[in-house]
């Protein structure tokens, strides 16, 4: 072995060791500051962590783009859905008067909210874009109650870290961190374009998270669980999306 190639070997080895060490330090810091998404393990962990950590560092307090009333799409697309259950149809027949959203976990006052209760809180409207990860999009006006208001009414505890939300469809649930949960544009939406939220769009009530893609906007919300540990839910990956192969964080 010549001198040059030995020197090269040593310097390459040192560079590799430095690289691995700094990766380890970065991972430790990311964990300490809550920058690791629940699906950070596995082969896609690096990209997913960089996506989520960048959002946390760059965009935590930013507002999703809002549009003028004239920009509302006249053809908002309600995506395909699995057929609705008998339980849903029964509630629909009663005009959703018996629809309840139960709230439990890290709250002082667990309980259930009816649609009437949600509508009695100060309502907010936003004209924002819903973009599907497939590539299509539309702009609509959503009306609802900010999730932060419901969490305040329920008495959210200071060590809460995530809000897990469940659809009436048992296979459909997701979660967001407190940055998104307390964000002023995150709604429990019950109205769309001036009317009641149509069933095709998740009526009577859907989660609206405009800084993330369509699939985080779960339809037919029946249950909110406030937690500091996503490992307790499903396979511990944060939502049904990673269990189906999709990223938990959908801001991109």
């Amino acid at each position, binding site marked *: 072995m010549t001198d040059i190639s030995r020197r090269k070997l040593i310097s390459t080895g040192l560079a590799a060791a430095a690289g691995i060490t700094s990766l380890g330090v970065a991972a430790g810091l990311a964990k300490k500051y809550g920058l690791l998404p629940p699906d950070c393990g596995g082969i896609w962990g690096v990209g997913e962590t*960089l996506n989520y950590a960048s959002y946390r560092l*760059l*965009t935590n307090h930013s507002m*999703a783009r809002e549009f003028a009333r004239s920009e509302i799409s006249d053809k908002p697309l309600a995506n*395909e859905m699995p057929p609705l259950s008998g339980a849903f149809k029964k509630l629909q027949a009663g005009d959703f008067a018996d629809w309840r959203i139960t709230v439990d976990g890290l709250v002082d006052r667990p309980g259930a909210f009816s649609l009437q209760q949600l509508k009695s809180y100060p309502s907010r409207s936003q004209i924002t874009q819903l973009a599907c990860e*497939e590539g299509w999009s539309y702009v609509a006006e959503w009306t609802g109650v900010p999730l932060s208001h419901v969490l305040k009414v329920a008495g959210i505890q200071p060590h809460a870290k995530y809000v897990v939300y469940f659809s009436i469809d048992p296979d459909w649930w997701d979660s967001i961190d407190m940055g998104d949960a307390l964000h002023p544009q995150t709604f429990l939406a019950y109205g769309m374009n001036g009317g009641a939220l149509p069933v095709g769009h998740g009526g009577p009530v859907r989660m609206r998270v405009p*800084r993330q893609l369509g699939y985080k906007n779960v339809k037919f919300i029946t249950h909110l669980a406030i937690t500091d540990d996503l490992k307790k839910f499903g396979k511990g990956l944060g939502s049904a999306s990673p269990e189906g192969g*999709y*990223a938990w964080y959908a801001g991109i």
Partner: protein
Amino acid sequence: MSAEKLIRMGEMQATPQEPVSGATRLSLSTAQPSRHSVLVRATHWITALSFLALLISGVEILISHPRFYWGENGNVLTPALFKLPIPSSRSLVPTGYGFVLPDQNGWSRYLHFQSAWFLALTGLIYVGAGLTSGHFRKNLLPHGEDVSWRALWRTIVTHSRFEQPTAAEVWSYNLLQRLSYLFVIFVLFPLIIWTGLAMSPAFTSSFPATVTLLGGRQSARTIHFFVAVSLLLFLLLHVGMVWFVGFRSRLRTMITGRIDGPQEDA
């Protein structure tokens, strides 16, 4: 090729050696300097692998909605700017095909962003090093008498005649190479990263101008597609040219940095 030109070629390369003719240099098999620096070779191959992964995953994402629009909005209920005549992985999309492909968007999106991170960070290292080391100035910016329409025409003619490069040209980039590499590095790659980020609802919440400047989310997606097609055309042309001048020897040079004896490239 004139002796004067050979000497000029010698001056262009990044190595600190005295300029010597290509023929002399090729005979110095043990003492010869690297044709490409370690940094150029490493970033080239990381970029190549990342780009391939982005291409495959990009196509997979595309087939879930092979329709394009302009402006902010577009979906199957609105008219398309144009559609690709391919089947889709969603039954919602009317394609004219009687079947629906399996959904591959989950791993495709994971892979797309992971490779995008690798490509962007590698690109930052490459551009940062290229600016400080003088790689762009010495090896990619056209020099002296090359900066003329006549010189451009001359290289176009030699390319269109499929003339093999001279021994000296093996040690440098010709004008067309320089211009196309600069275009890919400083126009196409920045544009594809920009249009990609312009589709992120989180990124555009912080930097809304990145999408409004392009005319909206669907415009960004359409431009992203065309830039990707341009990069694919560049890749095909690039690999085609490497094939033409000697695939195995050029591949070896891009991996080891060494140029083999002249018989390889003849």
